[in-house]
């Protein structure tokens, strides 16, 4: 389970983006979190993925309480999450070829021997051809780069996926393709999903249940 209790978070002291938000996901559940841009739902997603330290509240991941966030979080907890953001160009290191972008979490966790096999397997999964893998981010389209970012998020076989507006910049076909990759992965691993977005039609089609941000913060 992924349990967020009474989370307050923001980027400046005394000016939280939101207060006292609680949200829980069952194991293997796909939850859509729907809200307008700038409402704070992305910040909550970052808290859930251990990327942003909340000001108050508690987070429990598969029964284990989270005490530290970001690079201080224990590796076992950090690597339980795969995260994909809206702006692939901002989240991808521009110096890395796509193949290294995908492999980077393996190298960072000392699993170099897995690199070749895992990258080839994931490239096929997300539909990237060999010639694209040697290119750097500025040499590929937004859709191709987002495919690589999704492969990277899956490379450590996370138990939880957090997709923050993963498809907001993408065309309909690439959107459907990436959602299918996520769903195939979840079907084979039982991973849970927190999908944050502003498109109700998409989240309703994709997720088991959709929650409106407004209903979490009114209390």
């Amino acid at each position, binding site marked *: 389970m992924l349990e967020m209790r009474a989370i307050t978070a923001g980027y400046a002291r005394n000016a939280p983006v939101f207060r006292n938000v609680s949200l829980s996901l069952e194991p293997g559940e796909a939850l859509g979190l729907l809200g*307008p*841009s*700038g409402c704070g739902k992305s910040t909550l997603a970052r808290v859930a993925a251990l990327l942003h330290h909340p000001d108050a509240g508690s987070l429990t991941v598969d029964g284990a309480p989270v005490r530290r966030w970001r690079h201080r979080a224990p590796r076992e907890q950090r690597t339980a999450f795969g995260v994909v953001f*809206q702006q692939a160009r901002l989240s991808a290191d521009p110096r890395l070829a796509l193949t290294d972008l995908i492999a980077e979490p393996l190298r960072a966790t000392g699993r170099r021997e897995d690199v070749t096999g895992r990258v080839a397997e994931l490239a096929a999964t997300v*539909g*990237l*051809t060999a010639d*694209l893998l040697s290119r750097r981010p500025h040499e590929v*389209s*937004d*859709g*191709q780069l987002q495919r690589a970012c999704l492969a990277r998020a899956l490379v450590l076989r996370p138990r939880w996926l957090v997709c923050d*507006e993963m498809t*907001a*910049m*993408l*065309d*309909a*076909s*690439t*959107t*459907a*393709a990436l*959602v*299918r990759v996520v769903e195939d992965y979840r079907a084979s691993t039982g991973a849970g999903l927190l999908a944050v977005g*502003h*498109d*109700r*039609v*998409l989240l*309703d*089609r*994709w997720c088991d249940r959709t929650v409106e941000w407004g209903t979490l913060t009114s209390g």
Partner: protein
Amino acid sequence: MTERAPVLSVRGLSVRFLMPGGRRVAAVTDAHFDVAAGECLALIGESGCGKSVLASALLGLLPGNARTAGAALLGDLDLLTADERTFARTVRGRLVGLVPQSPAAHLTPVRTIRSQLEETVAELTDVRGRVALRQAAEAAAERAAFPVDHLDHHPHELSGGLAQRAATALALVGDAPLLLADEPTTGLDRDLVDRTVDELRRHVDNVTGGRSRALLMITHDLAAAERIADRIAVMYAGRIVELADATDFFGTPGPRHPYSRGLLDALPDRAFTPIPGLPPELGALPDGCAFAARCDRATDACDALPPLTAVPPSPDAVLPPPAGAPAATVACHHPHAALTEAADRA
């Protein structure tokens, strides 16, 4: 039916990029279309299909290694051969109003919306004098439904929706006959998408006074295109592969080109099925149909490039298409037929 002269006439527009090592990238090839006053044409396609390059060509914003062919006529002026001076003095803002993709990046961050609007009014119109400029700027804000009490804000203090309206207000100041909207709804919430396109539509329809305008909207957002457009142009691998009436395209008989069908089938409120594979590289296009590798209707005939041809009117059409109406066209050797609903169910 009144015959409307097109505001913009694009004839055989092609753009090539010359790359190091003598490589050539065919970003746009042989595009033909018209946009008339009071009409919205939505140019749709996935990122990298060439639609943004086409927009840049119309705005004189192509990089130095670009080579163009064909014509893009705004009245007597050919945008493809106009020099930078002409673009700066007579085109941008005056003949073509640009509604940009990311208004936040388009607006000057350190100045208030009021000062940017007043400056644009002074630049593009005959209005002079402090008081008159102030009034004209407020009138421009109101035209775009930008709240006057927010005029003294800086761009970063505005929500995405208000920033978009500020940018639209700027685009409307010069009363340009052609509006060019480049992905105006990217990253906006669905409600805001609806509001933004409805407002653009008002400016096309002459609801706000003045004359009606022509709107060319470039977008990958099919729901936004369906909401606003009269006609749809579908671009794939640098070519327009289908031009159709928007009602026919999104409803019955539906798109004729297999790629267009695939795009619609990918929508979450339709089949939510992706088109297999990836679009081809614009630097290494096949000789035949560029969609062949992804197409379930491909045959040997598709090794030859399919020309853009008129779609025969649907056999069950009650009325013939009105004289002078732009014909629907499709570039495919095996286009989908105009199915009746009964045939669709069978």
